[in-house]
C-alpha cells in the first residue's frame, strides 16, 4: 500500500527523536562531571559534604530567612561550630572565592536554573573584573 512508506517514515522520525540523547552526546563529546576547586584553608564546609551537595540551596534559604526576618546572625552547626550568616562574607569571602569556578560548575553541568542569589548578592570576582 502506498501509505506504508509514510508509516515507516514516521517510525524513523520517532526513533531518531527517542535516540537523540545518544546521538547528541556522541556528536558533542561527553562532558564529564566537573572537578571542583576546594578551598585550601578549610577541609570542612558548614555541614557535611553530602548534605551540602544535595541541600545547600535549602541551607542558604534558611540563612536568608534567619538573617532577614529573625535577625539571627550566627549559625551553629551540629558539632558546635559557629558561622556568620552571610553568603558574601562567609561562603564567598572565606572559601569559595570564585563563583565561576565553584557554583557555576555544577549548576551548568546539571543545567540548574541560574539561582536568584545573584539578583542581590555580588560576585566579588566579577566586581574586581569590572573595577579594573
Amino acid at each position, binding site marked *: 500500500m502506498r501509505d506504508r512508506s509514510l508509516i515507516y517514515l514516521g517510525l524513523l522520525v520517532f526513533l531518531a527523536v527517542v535516540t537523540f540523547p545518544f546521538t547528541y552526546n556522541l556528536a558533542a563529546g561527553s562532558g564529564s*562531571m566537573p572537578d571542583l576547586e576546594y578551598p585550601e584553608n578549610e577541609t570542612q564546609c558548614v555541614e557535611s559534604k553530602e548534605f551540602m551537595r544535595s541541600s545547600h540551596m535549602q541551607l542558604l534559604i534558611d540563612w536568608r530567612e534567619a538573617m532577614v526576618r529573625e535577625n539571627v546572625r550566627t549559625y551553629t552547626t551540629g558539632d558546635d561550630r559557629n558561622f556568620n550568616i552571610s553568603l558574601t562574607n562567609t561562603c564567598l569571602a572565606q572559601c569559595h572565592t570564585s563563583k565561576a569556578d565553584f557554583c557555576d560548575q555544577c549548576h551548568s553541568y546539571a543545567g540548574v536554573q541560574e539561582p536568584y542569589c545573584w539578583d542581590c548578592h555580588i560576585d566579588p570576582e566579577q566586581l574586581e573584573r569590572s573595577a579594573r
Partner: protein
Amino acid sequence: MAAFYSLILVLLLSIAGYFGGSAAGTFFGIIIPYAAIAVFLVGLVYRILLWANTPVPFRITATCGQQKSLPWIQSNRLDNPASGTATVIRMALEVLLFRSLFRNTKAEIKDGPRLVFSERKFLWLAALAFHWTFLFILFRHLRFFLEPVPGCVLIAQELDGFFQIGTPILYMTDLIILAALAFLLIRRLADVQIRYISLFADYFALFLLLGLALSGVVLRYFIKTDISGIKELAMGLVTFSPAVPAGIHPIFFIHIFLLSILVAYFPFSKLMHMGGVFLSPTRNLANNNRTKRHINPWNHPVKVHTYEEWEEEFRDKIKAAGLPLEKV
C-alpha cells in the same frame, strides 16, 4: 478491586526500587533501564510494523460530519475531509488537541424516564493537561541527558519556574500533572459506570504515572539528592559508559525503576495509543469514496465471461435463430 490490585503492585514496585536501588545500584540503575529501553524500542517497532502490515482496503466513512457531495450541500471539511490536506488537519487536531475527547458525554436517566446526554469537558481538559505537561516534563529532563545542555531546555525550565516560588523553584507542570492525573483517577473511581468498565490495566498505567510524578516531586522539593550525581548516572547511560556514583538517594531509584517499568510496559499496553492514534483508519483516511474508486488491491482475479465472448461462442446459433448481433 482492579484499582486496589494495581495500587498494590505499584507500591510493591516502588518498594523494590527503594531497597533494590540501595542494595544493587548497578542492577536498578544500569541493567534495568537499558533492558527497558531495549524492550520499548523493539516492542514499539514490532507493534507499528504489525499495524502497518494490517490491510485497510477501504475508507471508513462513519464520521461525524456531512460528506462532501453536491456543491450546494454544505459539507464538514474537518470532520469529513475529502482531500489529503483536510485529513492532515483532522489528524493534527486529533493528535494535538484531542478533538474526539471534546465530544465526551455522559448518559443519564432522568425523570420521565428519559435518557439525557450531557457534555463532560473535564476529561478532555485533564487529558490535554496531562499529555502536554508530560511532554514538557520529558523535554525538561533532557538537561540530565545532554551535555552541554541546549539553551531551549534551559528556557523551558525557566518558563516552567516563572513564578519563582520556593527553593528549588516550583515547576508549574509538576502541579498540573499531579492535578490532571488525580482527576483522571478520581473520574474512574467516582463514577459507577466508568468504574464498571475500568480494568486493571487502566488503573495500573495511572498509578504508575502518579508514582513516577510523585517520586520526582519528592526528589526535587522534599528529600533532595545530589543532582550532579544523577546527571553523571544519566550521562553514563546515554554515552554507553554507565556507572552509578555513590550518594544517590534511594528515592531516585524508585523514580528510575517506575520509569523503566512504564517504558518496558509501553509496547504491550494501551499506552501504545501514542503510535496508534496516527494509524486510526477512522481518522487518517480521506472520505472520498464518491469521487474516487477504491479497488481492493488483493482482489482475487475472477474469471469473467463477457458478452462479446458469449456472443462469439454462440454466434452461429444466434444467427440461425435470427436474433440481432452486436458484432456483425
